[in-house]
């Protein structure tokens, strides 16, 4: 199975990808471009290729061309400072980009052909034959902040995807996630195999303009993190008429579910649980936060769920074959379950999400490791102990808060101390990692093992 198999089933004039109402492309146009670009990238056949593009449409074109063509595709995230590390860890042989990069990657670079409707040599049908069962390698931020590479097959990524092309013709998806993320891939594949039109975002365009462009292209299905939905509800979204509202990537709280239900009354409201490690998990459709406890005995779509004594949620996906791209660490236990790292608690007849087992804080979809922030706080003169934790927030889901214990003689009550410490954090940490709330305390609980207590 490869992405371009869709061309055999979908009507040639079906609009599949769009950037704006004036730039919409049919199946036959994408097919012709695909033959042309494979011709141009003949030497990448059977290679391990890393792909990097700022624009989602460009990245999607690379995936369309190389799936079934390259041995593996490693999706790099533009703007990440760990690109070189990820390239080395992935064992890729060549990096495919749309524009020459400013940095010098450790492997040879190829520049992908630009998208064009006037392509020569589009008649060489043999180029559409599948050459490889391409592995898709996606990165997930590991507990130490180093990216963890997880390799998937296309068939396991599309396991739950509907392929009803008639039904698919009624939906137009908007792409709000970066295509290089696991959630972005899900939206791309879901819309693709259902034969639905997908409207891409243009990099750097503000959310309100993207939403306006989606509305102009007839978008009626959107997937976003709860934080992005909250931002959307705080923005002008007048033109959007949604039939499908999907939330993922963070804990969906009742407030955002209720607000979306009130705003998009006729839409299917779905919050999905999936992760780069566990792959496609399950979805909840009743509009209530958390998930019904009965899913532990009635596996949704064949995905088995287990909650261990520590409250960790484990998943056993049906027929999935994802694995760590490198390293000896095993992703699964002996029964085939994968630890999602999410902590859940049974409240009545539902499990509610309580955060990450590592203590990682999810600030609007971006992970913060408390230890990293604590290590900077401890470097500031006068700070003796520091504890960083999540504070629930109605806009970002969670924000970072810190409690510090000071050395004797240090005046924590003075406004200069707090503003100095905040300024110091700003010099060393990205904005979403800086403690939004800073408290000075006499002591901080320490566990039996001498570590800062995390719960």
């Amino acid at each position, binding site marked *: 199975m490869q992405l371009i198999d869709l061309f055999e089933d979908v009507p040639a004039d079906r609009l599949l990808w769009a950037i704006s109402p004036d730039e919409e492309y049919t199946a036959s146009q994408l097919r012709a471009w695909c033959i042309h670009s494979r011709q141009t990238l003949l030497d990448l056949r059977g290679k391990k290729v890393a792909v990097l593009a700022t624009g989602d449409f460009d990245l999607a074109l690379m995936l369309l061309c190389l799936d079934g063509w390259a041995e593996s595709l490693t999706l790099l995230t533009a703007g990440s400072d760990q690109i070189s590390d990820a390239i080395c860890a992935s064992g890729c042989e060549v990096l495919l980009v749309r524009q020459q990069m400013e940095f010098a990657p450790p492997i040879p670079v190829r520049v992908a052909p630009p998208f064009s409707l006037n392509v020569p040599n589009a008649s060489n049908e043999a180029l559409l034959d599948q050459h490889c069962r391409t592995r898709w390698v996606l990165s997930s931020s590991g507990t130490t902040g180093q990216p963890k590479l997880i390799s998937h097959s296309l068939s396991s990524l599309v396991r739950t995807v509907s392929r009803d092309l008639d039904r698919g013709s009624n939906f137009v998806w908007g792409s709000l996630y970066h295509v290089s993320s696991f959630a972005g891939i899900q939206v791309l594949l879901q819309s693709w195999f259902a034969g639905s039109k997908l409207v891409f975002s243009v990099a750097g365009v503000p959310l309100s303009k993207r939403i306006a462009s989606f509305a102009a292209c007839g978008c009626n299905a959107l997937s976003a993190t709860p934080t992005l939905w909250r931002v959307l509800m705080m923005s*002008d979204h007048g033109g959007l008429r949604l039939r499908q509202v999907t939330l993922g990537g963070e804990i969906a709280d*009742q407030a955002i579910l209720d607000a979306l239900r009130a705003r998009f009354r006729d839409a299917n409201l779905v919050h999905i649980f999936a992760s780069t490690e566990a792959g496609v998990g399950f979805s909840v459709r009743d509009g209530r936060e958390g998930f019904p406890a009965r899913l532990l005995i009635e596996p949704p779509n064949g995905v088995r769920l287990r909650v261990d004594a520590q409250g960790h949620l484990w998943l056993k996906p049906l027929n999935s074959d994802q694995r760590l791209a490198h390293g000896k660490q095993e992703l699964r236990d002996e029964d085939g379950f994968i630890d999602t790292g999410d902590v859940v608690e049974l409240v009545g007849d539902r499990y509610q999400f309580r955060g990450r087992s590592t203590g990682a804080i999810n600030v609007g979809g971006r992970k913060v490791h408390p230890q990293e922030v604590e290590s900077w706080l401890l470097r500031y003169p006068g700070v003796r102990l520091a504890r960083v934790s999540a504070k629930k927030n109605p806009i970002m889901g969670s924000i970072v808060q810190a409690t510090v214990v000071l050395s004797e003689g240090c005046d924590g009550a003075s406004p200069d101390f707090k503003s100095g410490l905040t300024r110091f954090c700003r010099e060393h940490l990205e904005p979403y990692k800086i403690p939004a709330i800073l408290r000075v305390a006499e002591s901080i609980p320490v566990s039996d093992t001498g570590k800062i207590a995390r719960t």
Partner: protein
Amino acid sequence: MPNDSTIRATIETVIRQVADESGKDLAADFGEETVLLESGLDSLDFAIVVARLEQELEFDPFSADSNPWYPRTYADLVRAYESLGR
């Protein structure tokens, strides 16, 4: 319970404080009808504003509200706090 004018003054002080800390300039015409996310501050800044206001005023209208909604303009934001502060 703080009165309306105290609430409004507190909200404005906190917004200016957060803008200052983030090194951002509030829109020159910042006022009642300013759309929050076009005011010069982003969603993370407003997340901080709401968290600080919870500390200052000891309530958070967005978590307490049984009829959830999200403020679009500065006037919406102030109204949310004033209606719960009464």
